[in-house]
């Protein structure tokens, strides 16, 4: 380790300890466990700054936060999965004594021995760790893959294909003529007047149609087909732009949240 790195680490450690002391002192008036709370807030601020330090370059503090995150998030999801699925969903169906042990309510309709099957399949899945019996783990995997494939086949055929096509068939010529006045009134993008709705419906219909033409690669994009494809990519560009803007603003709001945490919860500069 270089000497400069060591000095930076010592300085950060000292700042951490100082921050902990000051934060705990500031919290001592209102909270019982102010030492632990002060430590946790300081640690959260340290991790926030450690991740932000990546903007300069990859460094040991960022690596620290990154590796800690991997370990803790893996354990978090495992624990949540165990307590919400195994304990709450499976155990009350298999054993009353185990349900009592884990302090979860017992199954209203009695035990369901069929639920030993996923336990057996789950144990078979763990056979993947065995060098010789690893092939048995394909059976539970086949069960998961098969049911998911069948489920997705129907689900996506309905929601992403049939439903989307049926929703695209919107009225292009208006439902009922209400006179020139109502037709032209409210020339506003958010209005529900007939003209604006019709224009929007045409944009939706042509946008979907031309977008699909753009994604159809079995025919050369020339002539009228090529024009449709060009309109399709224009519509797609608007979408990509809108999605980009939306994503940027989402990230900015997260950044605002982190900066608020640093200046309000940690440093106490901003009043609540």
């Amino acid at each position, binding site marked *: 380790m270089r000497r400069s790195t060591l000095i930076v680490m010592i300085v950060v450690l000292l700042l951490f300890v100082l921050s902990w002391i000051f934060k705990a002192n500031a919290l001592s008036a209102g909270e019982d466990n102010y030492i632990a709370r002060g430590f*946790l807030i300081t640690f*959260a601020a340290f991790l*926030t700054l450690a*991740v*932000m330090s*990546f*903007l300069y370059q990859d460094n040991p503090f960022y690596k620290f936060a990154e*590796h*800690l995150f*991997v*370990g*803790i998030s*893996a354990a*978090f999801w*495992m*624990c949540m*999965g165990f*307590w919400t699925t*195994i304990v709450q*969903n499976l155990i009350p169906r298999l054993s009353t004594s185990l349900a009592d042990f884990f302090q979860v309510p017992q199954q209203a309709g009695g035990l369901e021995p069929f*639920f030993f*099957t*996923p336990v057996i399949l*789950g144990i078979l*899945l*763990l056979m993947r*760790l065995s060098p010789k019996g*690893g092939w048995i783990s*394909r059976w539970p995997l*086949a*069960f998961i893959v*098969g*049911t998911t*494939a*069948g489920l997705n*086949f*129907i689900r996506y*055929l309905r929601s*992403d*294909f049939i439903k*989307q096509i049926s929703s695209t068939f919107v009225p292009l010529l208006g439902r009922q003529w209400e006179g020139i006045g109502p037709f032209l009134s409210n020339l506003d*993008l958010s209005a529900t007047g007939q003209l604006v709705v019709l224009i929007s419906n045409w*944009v939706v219909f042509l*946008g*979907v149609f031309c977008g*699909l033409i753009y*994604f159809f690669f079995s025919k050369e994009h020339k002539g009228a087909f090529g024009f449709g494809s060009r309109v399709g990519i*224009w*519509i*797609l560009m*608007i979408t990509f*732009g*809108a*999605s*980009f*803007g*939306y994503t940027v603003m989402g990230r*900015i709001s*997260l950044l605002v949240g*982190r900066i608020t945490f640093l200046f309000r919860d940690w440093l106490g500069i901003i009043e609540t």
Partner: protein
Amino acid sequence: MKRQIPVVLVGVFGLFMIFQYFVPHESSEWIYEFLLDWTIIIGIFAMALGLWSLYRVSVEKIKTRKPAWGYNYLTLVGLFTMMLFGFTTQNGEAWGWFFPFMVSANLVLVLVIQATVTKDMRGLFLSLTAVFFVVCVLIIIFDDTWGFHFETAEGLRSTMFRAFFDNILIPIFATMFSLLAFFIASAAYRAFRARNVMATLLLLAALIVMLRFNPYFGPVSPYVNKASNWLMNVPNLAAQRAIVIGIGLGIVATSLKVMLGIERGYMGKG
């Protein structure tokens, strides 16, 4: 048998899930619910497999002294600590010997790793592991201020688990995602040029949507809001729909290939 039975199972269960959709009988729905629950339960075992894999990969990196290998200790200690917090909770107000237990348990983990990766002092590390393991067991037996519970009908009880979630996971997660704002802005600054119609459309759409969130636009802001909403609800919807139809067809085709045994990548080698 090693490869045929899985193909048959995939076909049978896949076709059943399709078939049951067209059978509006309660027994069909009952089996459907069962199978869904089973899939979720088996998924938890797959998660355990993932954790074991993480442990092995980390130990392997330590063993072969890969670049930045030292941080893998941190990953494993974080994993183990959070797991312990996830399976324990206070019985009353005091924590008793819980934190010495946590330190001893983590020392057991680190010493086991050391015994795995080194050849020279394996005996010493294993002896120390045994000592700290005994300490852990003694604390478990004699300290009744905490126990192996986590959640009850009243809800989450483990305060340390919650504290780690709030003060470690959330800050890192939110900051990592917020960093993308800088990277996206930097990429946009370099790439966004209104060179042609398509680039101009992209630029304008992005600009209008971003301006919509700006609170300092005064009298112009209602118009920007309307334009942004229209962009999101009309042209954006149209193109998203075209993309979604493509994705839907792709998923349906892939599901069919899996069920018919044409796609067998999930089985791996051997």
